[in-house]
């Protein structure tokens, strides 16, 4: 990456090599050097040493959550886990920019965003342990549960934002998705609707360079952020491994939405350092050198370096952060292992909100079947 005097970085990563006009917003470079930026600095003027430490702590904690969940999967306690390793800055930077009354519609990899929203740690694992179809009541943390159909949630966010408009509120809907999702019709339709109605929605695309085994070049021949202006949506391309820059661009997008300026598209250029999920094997399709290149741009390392340069990373502090992360991991593990088992009858619950004659009959027959073994019950907890 070549630094310009303004701190912008010309595009040399992944898609759009050599494409003109798409500068990457970066406030803290890979070595932890803070570069001034006259446009974005005012948006993070409040981020003092303590706030920077707080962002760092969140990133350390969510990386620890991620490694603990991966371990739980390897130990057979989770059926599957989608790691976010490498994407901590994109998710914490944007997630921390949100207000409580904003509403998030994400994919399945935004566990760090959920952490920012205050998710109960056990709830984070329910779906991956196979104990429930999803983990939490979306209204308790104003975040929909993970969406598995690629890109579908972008329309939900746009519709939610249309509802905000109708309500005359100044909340914002924020939707998270990946580079692969940008090929979906739903994402493109969401941008059409968002622009037409000037809905207060932020499209936060984490371009992590890989959609399972498919490189981003298969999804897009131009920088993804460059598509949005064609829909009439302003966009920005940000270093997704720079937590401060992600915070700044998200704040700008939220401010625009709150003040009636409509949608914004953010492309956070980052890297999925782990597999797509614990069932994936990236060694089959990507070069180890690529991983090394991106490891050198690690989002945590650069903030650690910045804090160190500010004399804010002494050994006591580093130990306390590690202890905090280990504590969260222990809580996560305990919550996972202590999760109540669902009862057979739970499969019939909540298909409808009202009684249903077809389903009631099937449940009745299945209960009789289970009872025919003499020990069955389908009652839930």
């Amino acid at each position, binding site marked *: 990456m070549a630094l310009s005097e303004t701190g912008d970085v010309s595009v040399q990563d992944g898609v759009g090599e050599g494409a003109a006009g798409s500068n990457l917003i970066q406030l803290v470079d890979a070595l932890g050097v803070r570069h001034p930026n006259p446009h974005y600095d005012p948006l993070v003027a409040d981020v003092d040493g303590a706030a920077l430490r707080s962002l760092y702590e969140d990133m350390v904690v969510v990386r620890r959550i991620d490694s603990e969940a991966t371990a739980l999967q390897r130990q057979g306690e989770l059926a599957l886990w989608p790691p976010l390793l490498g994407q901590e800055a994109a998710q914490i930077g944007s997630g921390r920019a949100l207000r409580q009354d904003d509403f998030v519609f994400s994919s399945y990899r935004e566990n760090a965003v959920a952490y920012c929203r205050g998710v109960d740690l056990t709830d984070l694992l329910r779906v991956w342990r196979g104990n429930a179809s999803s983990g939490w009541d979306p209204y308790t943390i104003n975040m929909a549960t993970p969406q598995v159909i690629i890109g579908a949630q972008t329309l939900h966010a746009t519709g939610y934002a249309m509802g905000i408009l109708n309500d005359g509120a100044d909340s914002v809907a924020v939707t998270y998705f990946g580079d692969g999702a940008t090929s979906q019709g739903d994402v493109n339709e969401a941008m059409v609707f968002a622009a*037409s109605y000037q809905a207060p929605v932020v499209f936060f695309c984490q371009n992590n360079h890989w959609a399972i085994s498919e490189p981003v070049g298969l999804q897009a021949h131009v920088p993804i952020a460059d598509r949005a202006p064609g829909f009439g949506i302003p966009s920005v391309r940000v270093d997704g491994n720079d937590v401060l820059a992600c915070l700044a661009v998200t704040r700008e997008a939220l401010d625009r939405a709150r003040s009636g300026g409509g949608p914004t598209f953010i492309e956070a250029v980052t890297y999925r350092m782990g597999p797509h999920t614990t069932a994936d094997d990236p060694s089959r399709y990507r070069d180890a050198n690529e991983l090394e290149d991106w490891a050198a741009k690690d989002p945590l390392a650069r903030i650690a370096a910045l804090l160190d340069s500010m004399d804010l990373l002494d050994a006591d502090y580093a130990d306390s952060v590690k202890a905090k992360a280990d504590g969260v991991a222990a809580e996560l593990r305990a919550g996972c292992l202590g999760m109540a088992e669902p009862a057979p009858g739970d499969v019939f619950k909540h298909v409808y909100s009202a009684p249903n004659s077809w389903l009631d009959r099937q449940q009745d027959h299945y209960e009789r079947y289970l009872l025919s073994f003499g020990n069955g019950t389908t009652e839930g907890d």
Partner: protein
Amino acid sequence: MSTMTFGRAINAGLRRAMDNDPKVILMGEDIGKLGGVFRITDGLQKDFGPHRVLDSPLAEAGIMGTAVGMAYRGYRPVVEIQFDGFIYPAFDQIVCQVAKIHYRTQGAVKMPITIRVPFGGGIGSPEHHSESPEAYFTHTSGLRVISVSNPQDAYTMIQQAITSDDPVLYFEPKRRYHTKGEVDEGVDPSASDMGAAHVVTEGHDVTLVTYGPLVPTARDAAIAASDDGVSVEVIDLRSLAPIDYATVEASVRKTGRLVITHEAAQSGGLGAEIAASITERCFDHLEHAPVRVTGFDIPYPYSKLEFHHLPDLDRILDGVDRVLGRRNSLSGLER
């Protein structure tokens, strides 16, 4: 009581639902100034404003997906799919999201979305304008599916659909839009059950089950049969998912003979489901295997031949003869 067309009755029901609940919002293509290609939403944007009657971009998945988001926000979206054959781009959002979000969130998020679908043939239209896709949706758990056959039900049941906390597909038989009927606008929609079938004509020889556009045809067939000394009981299902089997079963226990007729293709259709369920439930009362009189397993045909595809009075009567073991078009064929 007032006399109004089928289409006007839906319009009046929508108007009343919007009056009753400010969270009811209409979305669809051309539904604003134009009032929809069938004029079902005529005048509603003028009276309720463009923030409650939204002309949508031409993207059915987009309409359905944004309706999901609206529902998350506490709205009760009523979506118009312009024609039956245009619903497929929205299929993913309906099946994977609308139908499943209540289950997925263990009841925390409700999806009170009404999806209005003008459906069925008989209007001389080109491809994609005359389809009967209801079985795709009756096969999808989490959805309720209804079809209306007369102006009073159209008026009452659109309101029931909108107040339902579960998503409802509301299939409107477009070739009946101009049929007039008496409508009591003072009726309380909450006083009746959206899931209940309706016995249109009582009879004791044959049970004839149908819904939507073929209800008037079935009623005419019953009248014609009675001239021939056969007493046909016509049941208008009204709810297609779930089906009110108690009503159908009570009738079949009386008649011992079941004919099902619908415009949709035969294989894997609702007729198959009804025949199987009724056979399971009251096999001992059946005097003859259930008979299906349906559209063929073909893409909807070009308009000059569509009345060969659509069951009509004579084909239904032929089915009645078959279930009675009387001489019919298939007499002498091995079954």
